[in-house]
């Protein structure tokens, strides 16, 4: 009996030893156990980040709860370009937002990690800091910080959960120290999705025009920067052409201000529908619930529009010529169409408008190409850091 007991004890010890060895092996990728203050050896020396912008651009609004720091921007930049955010680590924000396309992917609609096509085109990321009425095509995110949280958990985008992402970041060999540098946290347990979103929002806030497009050169006083056709396009765009017998193309009402962003939401006359319920994509209505917001989408920035084809929320137009041709039809008379959409060209005197001539359409497209800002897309500070 005693012998049997001793034998069992030996077997039990062997089993426990094997189990312990497996447990250690399985936990090889686990993070070092979190202990309070495990990041305190990394210095936290926040330095304010000043966003570069053209002098004639308005001051950039910065939320009080997310001040810009050099380390915050750098962390946001790494997260933006890092596929660690997606469930299978194949997709980063930059998969659909590439600098060469002014942070679009130049596809009609984007595809997520499960190869499911989204229903909307990726939006250009430029001058986002000035947006006032909500991000995404439908305005569903109020702030850049809110916006940064959404694609990670969207099942047709990165199809991940923030719980997973935060766990991966905590285990990562370098990210915890970068969070410490950016936000002064004391240990990796303090890493949260909110801090990750704050860092990405800081990076997205620095995506501001360089002010070095040919258009900027022109309004800065170099009147040789645009040729005559481009100047005619500009005059029609901004409705400054009456004295030159040029009609109003009504563009700037929706794409106004120096950023040509607008930021408001419009039914820009893309679809002839019998009732507002017939819109295939309900747009802003999905955010506000106002039936008159069906088929309305955010007016995007026209800066770098020459780089962001295809166009519209569903990427239906391949070229700017097609876009101008569409607007030139003066809408379909749908009740919630933008107020100026029916007024392109000269008034006919009976409530209708002439539209633009072939020359005028061409001049407008040529002007839009003068908004191309290659200095912005080639800025080394916003490229992939990996």
């Amino acid at each position, binding site marked *: 009996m005693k012998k049997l007991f001793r034998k069992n004890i030996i077997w039990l010890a062997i089993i426990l030893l094997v189990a312990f060895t497996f447990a250690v092996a399985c936990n090889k990728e686990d993070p070092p156990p979190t202990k309070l203050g495990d990041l305190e050896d990394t210095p936290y020396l926040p330095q304010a980040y000043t966003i570069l912008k053209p002098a004639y651009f308005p*001051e950039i609004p910065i939320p009080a709860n997310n001040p810009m720091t050099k380390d915050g921007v750098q962390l946001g930049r790494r997260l933006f370009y890092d596929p660690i955010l997606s469930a299978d680590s194949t997709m980063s924000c930059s998969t659909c937002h590439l600098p060469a396309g002014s942070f679009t992917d130049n596809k009609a609609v984007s595809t997520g990690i499960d190869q499911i096509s989204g229903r909307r085109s990726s939006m250009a990321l430029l001058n986002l800091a000035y947006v006032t009425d*909500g991000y995404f095509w439908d*305005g569903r995110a109020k702030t850049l910080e809110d916006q940064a949280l959404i694609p990670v958990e969207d099942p047709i985008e990165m199809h991940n959960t923030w719980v997973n992402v935060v766990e991966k970041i905590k285990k990562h060999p370098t990210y915890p120290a970068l969070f410490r540098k950016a936000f002064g946290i004391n240990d990796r347990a303090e890493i949260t999705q909110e801090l990750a979103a704050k860092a990405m929002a800081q990076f997205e806030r620095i995506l501001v025009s360089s002010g070095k497009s040919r258009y900027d050169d022109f309004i800065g006083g170099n009147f040789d920067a645009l040729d005559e056709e481009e100047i005619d396009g500009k005059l029609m765009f901004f409705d400054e052409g009456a004295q030159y017998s040029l009609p109003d193309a009504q563009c*700037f009402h929706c794409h106004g201000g*120096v950023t040509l962003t607008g930021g408001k939401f419009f039914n820009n006359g893309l679809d002839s529908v019998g009732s507002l319920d017939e819109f295939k994509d309900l747009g802003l209505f999905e955010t*506000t619930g106002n039936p008159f917001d069906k088929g309305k989408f955010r007016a995007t920035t026209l800066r770098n529009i020459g780089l962001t084809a295809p166009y519209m929320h569903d990427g239906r137009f391949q070229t700017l010529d097609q876009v101008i041709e569409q607007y030139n039809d003066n809408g379909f008379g749908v009740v*919630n169409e933008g107020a*100026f959409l029916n007024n392109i060209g000269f008034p006919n005197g009976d409530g209708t408008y002439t539209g633009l001539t072939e020359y005028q359409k061409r001049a407008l497209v040529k002007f839009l190409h003068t908004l191309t800002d290659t200095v912005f897309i080639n800025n080394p500070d916003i490229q992939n850091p990996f």
Partner: protein
Amino acid sequence: MKNTTLLLLLLSFALLPACGDKGVEDTGVNFDITFKATFDGVQLEKNKDYQFGNIPMFVEACRMYLSDITLLNGDKEIVLSEIEYLDFTPTNAVSATPTITFKNVPEGEYTGIRIGYGVKPSLNAKRPSSFPAGHPLAIENDYWSGWSSYIFSTLDGKADPENDGSKNLSLAYHCGSDAVYKTFEFAQAIHVHEGEAGARISFDMKKLLTLADGTLYDIAAHPATSNSVSDVTVAQALTANFGRATTVEQ
């Protein structure tokens, strides 16, 4: 020596508060004004059907700048604000009634209020980049470079002048430029005291589209402001109506 040090220390503490306030007089009380847009006396709502004479219509956007909101009492004038921006139809709501709290308003009895409709010329000469982020005039979407002017007031909507059930006439009244700026005074007893209710100022959009003789503006013939800075007749006609369209109460 010990006593001298103590005296100097006490003196320093006594002088510290004086350094902080930089001589700014911190008297007066908070005074609220609630602004409201109406149509024919009822709260304006985005996309709600209204009757303008025999023309069905709705409003899509209603925004405006106000300059030099000033309380009056004889020679005494208290400027509550140099500039305010009011959006009565924000993106995420069908209507809004913004309340602005003016601080350090001297208590007393006032006999009226003066309001500048639009952006006064000295401010309109500047551009959004001249103002700090968050300032009403830093809103670059409401600056019109073609006019070198802010858009003082916006009233967009749709109307059905033919009464055929289709509101397909776009109304777009965007008023701006120095030639359009106008001020009006309103006689109204306004009491500013601690705990006293604030004032209410409402702007009626139907009255804005009604001429001095009571006839309704011909919105079918003039559905939009001219886009030429040299032709501001429609904008001037509408701005002239602001006086009659405004009601001040307390």
